C-alpha cells in the first residue's frame, strides 16, 4: 500500500500544466458480491462504469434495478441481451436489493 501511495504521489508531482506525462486515474477495487451470476453482471456493466457506481446507489427494489438495466440498454446503449437483462436484474436485487419488488 505504501508503494502505491508513493507511486501516485510521484505521478501527481510530475503533472505539469501541459500534462507532458499522461494523467492516470487510479483503478480501485470495490468489494462486489461474487456468485454464479457475477460474470454476467461483469460483462454487461463493466464496459462503462466501476462497481462503485452499483454499490453506491443504495439498497433498491427489484423494479428499480430492472429499470436501471433497461436504461443502460436503451439510453446508454449497453449491448444487454434479453436473457442477461433478467440475470443481471436478479443479481443486483439479490445482493443490493431492499427486499421489495416495487
Amino acid at each position, binding site marked *: 500500500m505504501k508503494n502505491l*501511495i508513493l507511486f501516485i504521489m510521484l505521478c501527481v508531482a510530475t*503533472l505539469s500544466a501541459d500534462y507532458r506525462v499522461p494523467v492516470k*486515474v487510479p483503478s480501485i477495487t470495490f468489494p462486489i458480491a461474487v456468485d454464479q451470476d457475477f460474470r454476467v453482471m461483469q460483462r454487461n456493466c463493466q464496459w462503462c462504469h466501476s462497481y462503485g*457506481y452499483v454499490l453506491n446507489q443504495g439498497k433498491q427494489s427489484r423494479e428499480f434495478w430492472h429499470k436501471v438495466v433497461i436504461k443502460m440498454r436503451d439510453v446508454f446503449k449497453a449491448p444487454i441481451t434479453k436473457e442477461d437483462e433478467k440475470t443481471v436484474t436478479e443479481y443486483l436485487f439479490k445482493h443490493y436489493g431492499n427486499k421489495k419488488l416495487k
Partner: protein
Amino acid sequence: MQRRDFFKLSFVASAVALSTSALASSTRQPIDSQKISTVAFPEKRPLITYSDRPPLLETPRDAFTRAITPNDEFFVRWHMPRIPTHTYISSYRINVSGFVDKPLSLSIKNLKEDYEQVQLTAVMQCGGNSRSAFSPTTSGIQWGSGAMGCASFKGVRLKDILESAGMKNGASWVGLNGDDKPIMDKMPSFVRELALHEIKDDVIVAYEMNGEDLPYLNGYPVRLIIPGMYADSWVKMLSNITVSKEYKELFFMDTAYRIPDNECECETEDNLVSKTKPITTMNVKSYIGYPTSNTQITANSNVLIKGVAFDSGHGIKEVLISLDGGKTWEKSELERELSSHAFRVFKFTFRPKVKGKVTIMAKAVNTLGEAQPFAHEIEWNHGGYKYNGIDSVTIKVV
C-alpha cells in the same frame, strides 16, 4: 457495532448502511463521517471515493470551515467513462459553430489574449448533493453533503465569445458539449443547452481555479461557470459551443436532473409527477465544518463552531445556531462576504458545561428571508435533488 466503526470496515460501505425501512417518505440527515479513501486521484488528496470510472469524489466535512475550498479537496463528478487527457494543450480547441456568422476555433491562448479576462468567486454544487437524506432511497449516487465547494475562477465571458462569432437573427439556444466520451457510439454525450437570455455577464468559460490551472478532474483545460445554478450545467472540458434556433432534445436535459414542476417540487413513489422542470437555481443551505460528528470536547472549554452558508446569489442574511434540538436559536457571527455567490463563513463560540452528547444545528437565512427547513420537513422527489435541510452534528462532551 458503532455506525462510525461500520464505515471503517468497507471501502464503499456507505451504500450498505442506507437500506431504509421505507414505509412512508421521511427525510433525515444525509450520511456523514464516510470513510476517506487511502488512494489519491491526480491533483487530489485522498477523498471520499464512490467510483473510479467515472471518477466520483466527495469532500469531507472538515473542509467546510473556509470560504474557499482548496483545489485538492474539491469534489469530482463525471458522467462519462472516457475522459481525455490533453497532453498537448496548445492543440486544444473550443469550437463555436451553428447559427453564427463566423464559426470559431479557439485555443486556450486565444481565450487568454483575445478577450476581456473576468474573475469571480462562486459555489459549485451537484444537484444531487446530500441525496442520501431522502427516504425511500432515490436513484443516483447516495452522496453525503460534500458534493459542493467554492472557488475563485478566472476566464472569459461566454457572451463575449458568442458575440465574436456573431449570432444570426433568431439564434436562441446555445448547446455546450464537454469532451468526455461515452463508450458506445450511440450513447448520448453530456450536452447542455442554455437559452440565450439565460447567459448573463457572469457566465464564464474558466481556465483557472483558485489561481491555478483548472485541475484535470474538475474539467481541465476549460469549464463553464454559471453562478447560482447547480453544477450539472457547468460543462467540464468544454469543447463545442453550438448556437441554434430551436431546442434539441437531450437526455441530460430532458430526462436527468429534473424535479416535479409543482409548488412544493415534490412527489411520492406511488404518485410520480409527470410534469417536470430542470433543477436550475440553488436554494439556501449551510453546513458545519467544525466540529465534526463524534468530536470529543472537554467540558468547560470553548468550542468555536465554524461552517459555510450560501444560496443562489441573493446573499446570506444570517446563520442561526441551536444547541437544544432546534427549540431556540442564536445568531452566529458572519465573516466578510467574498461575493454574493460565495460560501459565507459563520462562527459561533460556546462552552459546554454538562458532560454527554450535544447536538449542534445550523440554519441559514438569505436576504429574501428564505430559511432552511428541518431535514424531516423536506419533501421527496424521485431524483433526490435540492436537499437543503438544517445541518446537525452531535459531539461528545467529556
